[in-house]
């Protein structure tokens, strides 16, 4: 994956890069100037400013990448020239590290459109140039606001889809619009009192637990899977701390490189992919603890919890029906049928009595 490739690049860099590698400080000597701009042929200006603090806080900054790790066509700086590096620079090739993501992206509608000269996002449009962040969020809507919904209005399409608002709010676009992803149900804590999803770090804070302690504390049977009883204990503990918790389920995907293989033509249009008991999309259930950094921890959950009334805000028609209701229904139907049949049969059997009475009168 990307991180391995990054480690490899850094390791390789020690030998492969020129002896006097360009330091970030040298780049920032010019690029920390907020007024540094490039005038484009059409007269517009392009800011060349890089905010050092924001870069340091980015994923690449945290991993201590140098400017030239990405801008690899800068091998040395020539201070005698007006601009000490080649102009223009080659576009950054993210696939040097993120090869699997790039491979998936190359098969996406976005890549196909760009190849055809149309306006479509490349890596940076979603992930930003210099300030790349982990982009996970506390719920699907917040997540999609960072990605697809920045460009797409889902209501303009999906004419065939019932319950649009619910699907758009609680199903990640990639569940249907990315080939090869592994959909999963993301369970999160929703606080009825404050009417919001509770971010993972807040939960840990309230429970006074570290990330590592969370599973140790609530996975009572230590099988690595949170089951219904264990979730009930978690809910009770949160109630004790003033959080009126309900487990809110949303459809998400496992965050693998395949999420970049965005498709329009091959989008899933079969309701049964989810709306079917035992549907593949419902086999993976995870409890999500989001972090303020945009990262998240995922804990495996027993899929049986989905048909429990306890997970009161995850109901997929047909798929997560509560069996008890159908048992009650069966009794009600049986009573109706038994009354009609029983009474009818009795009338048939007693018809001689009525005939006799008719003859008498």
């Amino acid at each position: 994956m990307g991180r391995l490739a990054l480690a490899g690049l850094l390791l390789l860099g020690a030998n492969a890069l020129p002896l006097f590698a360009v330091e970030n400080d040298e780049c920032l000597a010019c690029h920390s100037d907020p007024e540094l701009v490039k005038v484009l042929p059409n007269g517009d200006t392009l800011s060349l400013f890089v905010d050092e603090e924001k870069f340091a806080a980015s994923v690449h900054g945290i991993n201590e990448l140098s400017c030239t790790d990405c801008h690899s066509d800068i091998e040395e700086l020539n201070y005698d020239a007006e601009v000490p590096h080649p102009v223009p620079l080659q576009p950054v090739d993210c696939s040097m590290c993120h090869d699997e993501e790039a491979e998936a992206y190359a098969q996406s509608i976005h890549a196909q459109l760009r190849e055809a000269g149309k306006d479509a996002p490349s890596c940076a449009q979603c992930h930003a140039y210099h300030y790349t962040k982990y982009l996970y969020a506390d719920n699907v809507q917040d997540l999609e606001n960072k990605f697809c919904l920045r460009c797409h209005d889902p209501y303009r399409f999906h004419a065939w889809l019932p319950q649009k608002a619910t699907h758009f709010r609680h199903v990640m676009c990639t569940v249907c619009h990315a080939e090869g992803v592994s959909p999963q149900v993301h369970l999160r804590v929703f606080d009825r009192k404050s009417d919001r999803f509770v971010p993972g770090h807040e939960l840990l804070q309230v429970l006074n637990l570290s990330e590592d302690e969370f599973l140790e504390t609530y996975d009572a049977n230590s099988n690595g899977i949170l089951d219904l009883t264990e979730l009930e204990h978690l809910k009770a503990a949160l109630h004790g701390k003033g959080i009126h918790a309900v487990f809110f389920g949303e459809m998400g995907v496992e965050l693998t490189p395949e999420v970049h293989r965005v498709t329009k033509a091959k989008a899933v249009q079969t309701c049964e992919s989810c709306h079917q008991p035992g549907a593949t999309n419902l086999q993976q259930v995870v409890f999500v603890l989001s972090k303020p950094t945009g990262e998240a921890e995922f804990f495996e959950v027993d899929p049986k919890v989905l048909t429990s009334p306890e997970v009161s805000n995850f109901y997929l028609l047909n798929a997560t029906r509560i069996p008890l209701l159908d048992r009650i229904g069966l009794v009600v139907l049986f009573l109706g049928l038994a009354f009609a049949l029983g009474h009818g049969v009795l009338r048939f059997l007693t018809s001689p009595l009525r005939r006799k009475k008719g003859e008498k009168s």
Partner: protein
Amino acid sequence: MKRVYLHPVPVRIWHWIHALGILLLVLTGFQLRFADHLHWISFRTAVVVHAWIGILVSLDFLLWLGYYLGTGKIRVYLPRAYDLLKGAWKQARYYAYGIFVGEENPFHPEPENKFNALQKMTYLAIMGLLVPLQVITGILLLNTGKFAGIIEALGGLKVVDAVHVVLFYVFAAFIIAHFYLASLGPTFWSHFKAMITGWEEEPEEG
């Protein structure tokens, strides 16, 4: 046989829209709830058909309510003191015993008093409580995104859906019992015909 005009035109229109609507709602309801076992129509078609018929039946309910409240005839649904004990007992005894031995039905419908004690109680519970509850939960389930706040306040999607599903089974059972009871007129088809023509045939007294 004497003839009594029991069911005016608006009542008959309401009744048959309701009957056909509820039947289709029950059938599509089964399709939606057991799409893994039943394959009458596609899941999506069942969703759409169930929703539109639900809206039609809800509007039909308003027709019923408007007619009965507007004309003041809603009184035919309201049990009187007599109905609550004596009337109910006599009618229950008739259905449980008298009907088998050839006794006369103790109740004789008139336009202003067309339901027997048991019918009044049953229909009042259905039209005054169960149908409105089904309409309300149905409307909430029609757009779970738009009504998320109300659904949440009522205990969540599963709670609202559970009410809708249990009532669905009650209505399915009601259709069976209602159809059977409708056949208990002077002839098998008497009550069915009355709901089409408006005129109920009643055996001459004495």
